Each structure stands twice: as structure tokens, then as C-alpha cells.
């Protein structure tokens, strides 16, 4: 093997080259359970969505039996990605291009001009002609939809079961989504960095007290606990004692009721390969990292909060603004400066992280670039994550 420049255990080119990006699409994002939204995105029988998961576009449909079905969004005729549910009570899936129609089990039901145009199908039962939709898998974990391109995928609980006890105690199903604009995610941002840079920033404990010294300081980083369960990372840290002592007043939004008092804190796990959760005292969020190109990543954050009236929210925000806790913690830039133009003066931890990620991506192309050292505890996760990516891809056929 040639002597490649390395990050920790992956080569630098894994963060810069199209070849690596293509391999990840094939061997990582098309072989894992992929986040597809929230359960409430497909609320009623007949509702459907389609999502891109690695190389696959997957169509999720809820039947009248309230069970979700997943198919590859590919009409078996000419492969068009046009599927939609139609008919009274949405009992059929059709491709509007030539009106080939399938039932809810993906079986081909009708083909216009079948006998004249397709003599090889004449007299045959269509569902036995090997032209049924390709089935995929869909399941639910913590109120989130996940899809897997294989029909007989390993069960979602085999994949996430081991890490589940380390996630927040939040009962996600009781929370309601919060967004500034209807039908839009709480936060969407394209970051000019490789998706792994974004993940590594998310799971890096070492940076919390430094990059975010004025923004995430309401949590007690010194008491953080974290570790790995299979390919998944888990993380927990408590509130700072004075924040906790006044949390009923200080918390900016109503406290999430399903979190017992003694378990309040920030749970910030990373579910392999590309979905992080942010589960804290007043919000529960998904941090979906979608690779767009070797150096471009779309981050979509969807956020849920306690199901309380707007009056409750207003009341809480007023109480919170009066709390002395916020004179001490949060919302302060690392450096003084123009909050609008300098991320380091923004007082916004997302701005800080994005800035750090993009600046790291830039340096990857420098001939002088190297990783000089790795924090033993605080950055172990970065090495481990790269190991997990490598292992997973190798186990699924990548020659790397």
C-alpha cells in the first residue's frame, strides 16, 4: 500500500476525493438503515413520501392496515422514479409515465395494451412476470422513520437496540415538531466540508470547552460521559449545577415532561452512520447529515418540543429571560467582534462549528496538512468513528 496521508485511520482522500465519496454512497449509505423523517410525516393510510437514501430512492407508503411499506421508487417498466399512490383509498401505486399499476404489496396489477404491446406477457398473470416493484424495508425507531434498501434487512432493533438504553429518556411520540415556517425543517444549512468532518465535530468532546466556551457552557463538560455501543456513539453531560438549581425558571422552553428530574441533561448521541440526536431538557432534535459532494454536506435539523400551549411557551420564555443563569452562561461569542460577520463573535454554537468544519476542510488540500496529535480521551471518538466507517465499508465489499 502506498504511503497515504492520513487523518486518523482514514486517508485524507476519504475527505476530498470523488472516488471515496462514490464508494461511501455504495458501501455505506446504501447498506445501512437511513433516516427518512418522523413517523408523523406519513400520518394516514394512503399517505406516502419518497426519500433518497444513498443511491436509492425509496418510496414509503402507509396502507389502510396502518402498516408502512417501502419500495424502491423505480417503475419496473423503464425504471422511472415517478411512483405515487392513487385511487380511492390509495389502494394502488402507479407510474404516471405509462400508467403501469401495482398493488400495495408491490405486485404488478395492470399494464395498458398488455396483450398487443407485450406478447411475452400475454395470458400470464402479471404478478408472476417478475415485474413487481423491488421491495425495501421501513421501520420506526424512537419516533423516527428509517429505510433500508434490502427487503429482508436485519431488524432495526438489531442495529440500534444496543445503544437505545444510552439515549435520552424522552418519549419522542409525546413531543411536537417546532419550526419557524410551515413544512420546513427547523434548520437547514449546506456546509462546505466533507460529511465526516461534520460528524467528527459533533462527537468531539475535546472542543466543547474551547470552541464553545461562551455558547454551550450551561452544560458541565467536565462531567460528560460517553462511549460506544457497536458503531454508535453515545454522550451525556449534566447541566451546570446553578442552571440545574434554577432550571424551572431558567429553561428557555417548557421542560420536557418525560425526562425524570434526576436524568436531566444533554444527550448527544451519534447514530451510525449519519444521524445525530440532540436530546436535552427542553428540545429533542435530529441532526441529519446528508453528503452532497466530497466537500459539501447538507445538515437538516428537525426539532421537537414539549406539547404545551403558546401561552406556556411565552410564560416560560419570560421567566427564562429574567433568570440570572443566562447572565453567566450561553450566547456569548468566543471573541469580541461583529456578531454578524465573525462566527467567533456570533455567540451561536452552530456558527462556531460550521466555521471550524469549513476551515478544516480547506486545510486538507494544503501540502503541509497533517494531524499532529490526538487527544486520548476527548478525541478517541474521532478515531473510532473512522474505524467504524472503514470496517463497515470493508464488510460490505469495499476494497479500501
Amino acid at each position, binding site marked *: 500500500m502506498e504511503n497515504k496521508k492520513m487523518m486518523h485511520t482514514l486517508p485524507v482522500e476519504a475527505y476530498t476525493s470523488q472516488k471515496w465519496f462514490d464508494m461511501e454512497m455504495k458501501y455505506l449509505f446504501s447498506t445501512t438503515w437511513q433516516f427518512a423523517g418522523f413517523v408523523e410525516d406519513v400520518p394516514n393510510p394512503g399517505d406516502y413520501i419518497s426519500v433518497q437514501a444513498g443511491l436509492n430512492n425509496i418510496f414509503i407508503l402507509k396502507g389502510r392496515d396502518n*402498516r408502512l411499506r417501502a419500495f424502491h421508487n423505480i417503475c419496473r417498466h423503464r425504471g422511472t422514479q415517478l411512483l405515487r399512490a392513487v385511487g380511492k383509498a390509495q389502494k394502488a401505486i402507479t407510474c404516471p409515465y405509462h400508467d403501469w399499476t401495482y398493488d400495495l404489496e408491490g405486485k404488478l396489477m395492470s399494464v395498458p395494451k398488455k396483450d398487443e404491446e407485450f406478447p411475452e406477457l400475454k395470458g400470464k398473470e402479471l404478478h408472476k412476470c417478475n415485474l413487481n416493484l423491488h421491495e425495501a424495508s421501513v*421501520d420506526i425507531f424512537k419516533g423516527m422513520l428509517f429505510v433500508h434498501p434490502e427487503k429482508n434487512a436485519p431488524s432495526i432493533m*438489531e442495529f440500534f437496540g444496543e445503544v437505545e438504553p444510552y439515549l435520552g429518556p424522552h418519549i419522542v411520540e409525546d413531543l411536537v415538531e417546532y419550526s419557524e415556517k410551515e413544512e420546513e425543517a427547523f434548520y437547514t444549512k449546506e456546509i462546505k466540508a466533507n460529511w465526516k468532518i461534520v460528524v467528527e465535530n459533533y462527537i468531539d468532546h475535546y472542543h466543547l470547552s474551547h470552541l464553545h466556551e461562551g455558547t454551550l457552557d450551561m452544560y458541565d463538560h467536565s462531567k460528560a460521559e460517553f462511549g460506544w455501543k457497536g458503531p454508535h456513539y453515545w454522550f451525556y453531560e449534566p447541566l451546570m449545577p446553578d442552571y440545574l438549581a434554577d432550571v424551572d425558571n431558567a429553561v428557555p422552553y417548557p421542560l420536557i415532561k418525560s425526562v425524570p428530574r434526576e436524568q436531566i441533561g444533554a444527550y448527544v448521541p451519534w447514530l451510525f452512520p449519519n444521524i445525530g440526536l440532540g436530546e436535552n431538557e427542553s428540545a429533542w432534535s435530529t441532526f441529519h447529515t446528508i453528503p452532497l459532494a466530497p466537500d459539501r454536506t447538507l445538515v437538516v435539523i428537525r426539532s421537537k418540543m414539549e406539547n404545551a400551549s403558546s401561552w406556556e411557551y411565552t410564560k416560560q420564555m419570560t421567566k427564562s429571560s429574567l433568570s440570572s443563569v443566562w447572565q453567566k452562561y450561553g450566547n456569548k461569542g468566543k471573541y469580541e467582534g461583529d456578531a454578524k460577520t465573525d462566527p467567533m463573535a456570533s455567540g451561536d454554537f452552530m456558527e462556531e462549528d460550521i466555521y471550524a468544519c469549513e476551515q478544516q476542510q480547506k486545510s486538507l488540500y494544503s501540502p503541509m496538512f497533517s494531524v499532529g496529535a490526538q487527544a486520548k480521551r476527548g478525541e478517541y471518538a474521532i478515531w473510532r468513528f473512522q474505524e467504524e466507517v472503514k470496517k463497515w465499508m470493508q464488510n460490505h465489499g469495499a476494497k479500501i
Partner: protein
Amino acid sequence: MEQKSKTMNNKSFPLKVIDVKHETKDAVSISFDLPYELYETFDYKAGQHLTLIFNINDKEVRRSYSLCSSPVLEENIRIGVKRVKNGLVSNYINDKIKIGDTIEIMPPEGRFYADSKKEFYKTYYLFSAGSGITPIFSIAKTVLNTEERSFVYLFFGNRDQESIIFKKELDELKEQFPERFILVHTLSKPKTSWFSKNEFEFRKGRVDEESVNWFINEYPPYAQNTEYYICGPGKMIEDTEEALHKIDVPQNRIFKEYFGSGKEKKGIESVDNAVLIATLNGDTVETTIPKGKTILRTLIDFGENPPYSCEGGVCSTCACKLVKGKVAMKKNLGLSDEDVEKGYILSCQSLPLTDEVEVEY
């Protein structure tokens, strides 16, 4: 078709009754002592049944009763038996069987079962009515104890509060698995209980199309790999299955077991004294079928030992393959359309329609 693996030889074993529990005024559960050397022979899957052989009024009678015990728990094998109106055997069992009695029993069998595995992650919808709870109870216990994360949603129909078999044990199961086990009772003729202090929650009505729809909408599946098990009287099964079909539940996810009698086909014009050629246990025998007699009865009366147990067209133990001729089945609650298409018949229900029929067991 997969079946008749271990009971091909029609063998039975004397087992001792070690417990008789009166579950309701019309139903008992009976536990048997299983000697160590029979553990393997009597290994079973949740949902299967035992066939009991009695000699009542000098006639050998066999009846199949579902196991309500779970193969994954350390409990004795146990069956549930509800009185059937004018039923010879069920009343005999309810009235006469006591601890210490010995009963001839054939090893467990049946195609209605849940093959539970630890790593499964499923939602099991269980529909039962009356004594149909027997195999369903076994399935519920087995799944909850084996599959660490699967969900069990049980919809259970009865006449009234007092006719609910295993009521207490079901409540205990609910306490044990509060997050994964949903139990909803529906009563067709509930007793008003103004004086009763303990509130018993139930829905009014039967297990029928409307209530099945209600149940599924009220309790949508969490794990998306769903299976549907139905056990009860014929009408309840038909209604439930119909309801499931109407909401597009695929047939391969539905499993059912008929309790009690189904509809019998009347007015079959069978051929008198048709020639019967049967291959069983490696031998081929030839005889004639007297008017009105089934293939199975003909063979038994001829001195043969064909496999069978329920003789009611349910259990499929007596299934054989028709290789020549035509027959009509009075009832068929055991074989799927696909089985029938492949030529399988239930010999206990089959009357000849041609002058000659040939079957292979």
C-alpha cells in the same frame, strides 16, 4: 405442505394429569406430567395442539386441544378445554378428569404457530374469541418472553366478564410487559357491574369487521413487520380475515386456527363403492368405500392405521395426496387453496366423486 413429521406413526403416550384448574364455569385447563424421556417428543411451538384419545362408551374418540402453556417458560404442558354444547369429549373432560388420571396423548402438532426468535422485531396482532384464547395465550407469552422488543396486541372477545378464560393470567402478563403488551377485551353481553369496585375495562361488541378495524386504527403497529393470528369460531375468523383483507393485509401475514365447527358442504353426490387404492406406511392397500364413508374411516375400518387426529377437517394430520380420481371434502379448514391446488386432501373429510380414487399418505 410441511407436516406429519413426527406423528406419522400415529403413536400416543400415557400422560398423567397433575393439575386441573377450573378457569370459568365452562372451561378447564389441564396440566400433564411429562417424563424426561418424552421431552423431545413433546417439544412444541406456541400455538400447536395435543390430540387426546379416550374410550367413551366403548368407542375410541380423539380430540385435539390447543396448548395454552408456553414452550419457553418452565411450565408443565397444559391444554385448555371449553365445554361444547352436547360435546361428548369436552364435557367428559370438564366433568370427569381429575388429578392422577392418565390420558393417552399424541405429541404436539399443528400448523398454527408462531416460530418466535430472539432477534425478531415484530408487531403481533392476536385476535381471539372464547376458547380461541388457548393457543393465542401461548403465542402471547412465548413472543413476549422470547423477543425482547416485539409488541403483542391482543383483541379478545367474550360473552361477559365471567366467561373470560385466563383472565387473571392475562392481567399478570400485562403487568409484566406494560410497554409491549396491549390487551383489549370486547364483550358481547357484558354484565353491568355498578357494585363492583374494581373497574374492568372493555369494549362492547363482538370481534367483527367493525371492531377489528377500530382496534387496528386505535393501535397502529410500532414495529412494521406485522403478523396477524386469529383463533376462534368460524364466523369470527371469517369476519376478522375479511376485515384484514379489506384493509390490504397480505394473506401471507395472516395465520388462523378454527375452533368449533365450520360450515359443512351439504349434498355431495358421492360414488357408491368406489375403489380406494391407498399407499401408507410404505404399503399399498385396496378396498372399496361404502356409501357416505370418508376415505379415512374406510381405511381405519379396513384395519389400517392412517395418521389422523381431529377428524373435523381442521388439524390436517390426515392430509394425503390425491394421485388419481376426484373427491369432495365436506369441510376444509386446514388446507390452503395452494395445498388443494397441489392435490392435497383431508382424508377425514373426503368422499369419492369417481369410481376409483388413489391416495398417498
